[in-house]
């Protein structure tokens, strides 16, 4: 009797462990599919960033970005003229800003914003979510499913994410939380658009934050193209030459 009990306990433990592993595997696969639907693995894009302020004022920036792999992003400001030529680079959680007059890259952090709006540097130079977060829970919703994500380490800008996606793995909404559980901001993914070559994704990301009442920022994707780059494009020495990638 004792042996049967021990065998049952072992079987229960094995089943639970295996099923948890399978679910975790499935959820992390879902996150990877969301990343894949959002962007090609290696691409170039043109975006417009618009920051709206409580008094109705707007600031607009146009940027050219390139990305490779899970966590390499470089970006060049094209407009306005006062920011033109500034570049940023992200390698994992390392970030730099290059200002042409200064002539050297300086380290910046994911928490600040090179544009000054609700989007921080981590949002503007977004890398794959699966590179920064693990899925720790999931549930079904009316239109698809919801993933709960936890940052892989404390260098990531947000400690937890709650991510809404459609049944076909297209992002709908993300809520970003601090370690304390406080909601920092919400990102809405809107206006699906066919960018060609199989890239069908939301073309507008809007963000607002309970911490910045009356502020609103949006990111409009104007063009996305798959493109391969050398690894050396994502080095601080290359930051002053990102313009050459547009030629």
């Amino acid at each position: 009797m004792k042996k049967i009990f021990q065998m049952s306990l072992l079987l229960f433990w094995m089943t639970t462990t295996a099923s948890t592993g399978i679910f975790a595997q499935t959820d992390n696969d879902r996150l990877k599919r969301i990343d894949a639907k959002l962007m090609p693995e290696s691409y170039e894009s043109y975006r417009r960033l618009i920051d709206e302020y409580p008094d109705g004022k707007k600031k607009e920036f146009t940027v050219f970005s390139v990305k490779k792999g899970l966590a390499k992003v470089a970006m060049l400001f094209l407009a306005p003229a006062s920011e033109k030529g500034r570049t940023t680079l992200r390698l994992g959680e390392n970030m730099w800003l290059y200002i042409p007059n200064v002539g050297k890259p300086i380290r910046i952090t994911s928490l600040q914003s090179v544009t000054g709006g609700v989007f921080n540097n981590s949002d503007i130079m977004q890398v794959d979510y699966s590179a920064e977060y693990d899925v720790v829970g999931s549930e079904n919703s009316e239109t698809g499913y919801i993933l709960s994500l936890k940052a892989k380490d404390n260098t990531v800008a947000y400690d937890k994410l709650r991510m809404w996606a459609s049944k076909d793995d297209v992002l709908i909404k993300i809520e970003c939380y601090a370690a304390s559980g406080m909601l920092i901001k919400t990102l809405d993914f809107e206006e699906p658009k066919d960018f060609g070559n199989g890239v069908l994704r939301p073309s507008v990301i809007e963000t607002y934050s309970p911490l910045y009442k009356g502020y609103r920022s949006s990111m409009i994707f104007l063009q996305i193209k798959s493109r391969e780059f050398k690894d050396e494009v994502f080095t601080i020495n290359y930051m002053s030459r990102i313009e050459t990638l547009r030629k």
Partner: protein
Amino acid sequence: MKKLAFFFLVMISTIVHAQDDSSEIFFEELANEKLELSGSFDVDYSIFWSRKESPLYQLLYYNQDLSDILTSYLLEFYLNGDYQTKDIGVHFKTHLEYFSDNQIDFYLLELYGNLNLFDSSFLLLGKKMYNWGKGYAFNPVGYVNSQKDPENPELAHAGVVSINFEYSKSFQSNWIQNFAFDLIVLPSKNILNNMPSEIDNTALAAKLYFLLWDTDVDVMSYYYGNTSTANIGMDFSRNIIPSVEIHGELGFFINQTKNIISGGALMPQNIDGTSYLFGLRWLNQWNITTILEYYHNDAGLTVTEYGDYSTFLSDAVASNISSTISDALNLSKTYFSGSVLMQDYLYLKIFWPEPFKLVDFAASAFIIYNINDSSLSVGIPLEYQPITNLKIIFQPTFFIGNNGTEFGSKQHRGKMEIQASYYF
């Protein structure tokens, strides 16, 4: 005058051109354009509160009975051009200063060509500004840098004529992510009767860069054959937590010239020594960035040496001989015109964009504190951006210290600068 009119015409045409950027497809058109012009037009108005007891003031305005408050009005025009194809580019940066019809100064800040070579290597030929080192206000290892002004470290400066070869390599490794090598040859500037110069006057500089364990590390050296001056140094920069970055520089120099005044005359010495800097950059929860740096330079003047220099200027004034005064002023401009002259400094800058939710404003304040003589310079730049591409900066600066100290003997007690810049 014709030169000025030409630059204004170019400026107006480029401003008109820049207005087209509201189109959704402007970026595609721009990408296809080979030559792009950009720059800014600045109007500067400055008010200076004179320190008439300063020996430097008395040398500069010898025998002139002037008002306690002086002003200057300056027009500046920066024009940059970039002709870039996929692998070859030609770039220039120019600066025009207009004081009056009789005084128009033109500076070629940069003019260089660049070429992408094989396998992530790159060649640059021409006049180019470099900025080595991780320090914000000072760079002990900035061997090829233009002279930096700690009051405004982000100001564009003239570059140096050079040949620069660069090689970069990335790695898929947990400990080393990037590596780069820079070799810079600086041909001699000392020409002889419009003929080629001696090869000994050529300088060589080299730098190795590593991104190691998420830390930027540079090791660099500089050698100037004619005087056997040699420098070797290193720097680093790293985020210890996401909101705090630390950085440092350490440089050793051999046979470097240090200019001091001894016995009422210039007495250059060749010395060996070190120069170093430690600093941090902290971003707090209110989006306020604080930069704090400590800088030491063995080649700077001691308190006694600065006193000798100050006495030399006072003696020149007391001599009442115009040639002596003129010589002293020239010596001061040539050998003691650095932004800081002594050995130990603390630098603090606080920058607050959009203070109190005022969207168009940015407030900052900086202090350059001379540890050796307890004098200081304090600036409070306030920036206002009423419309896109137009910036207006109000900057009061005060020079505080006892008589005979570095900042206490500046020719001005303080100044108020108002600058309006339009970018195109």
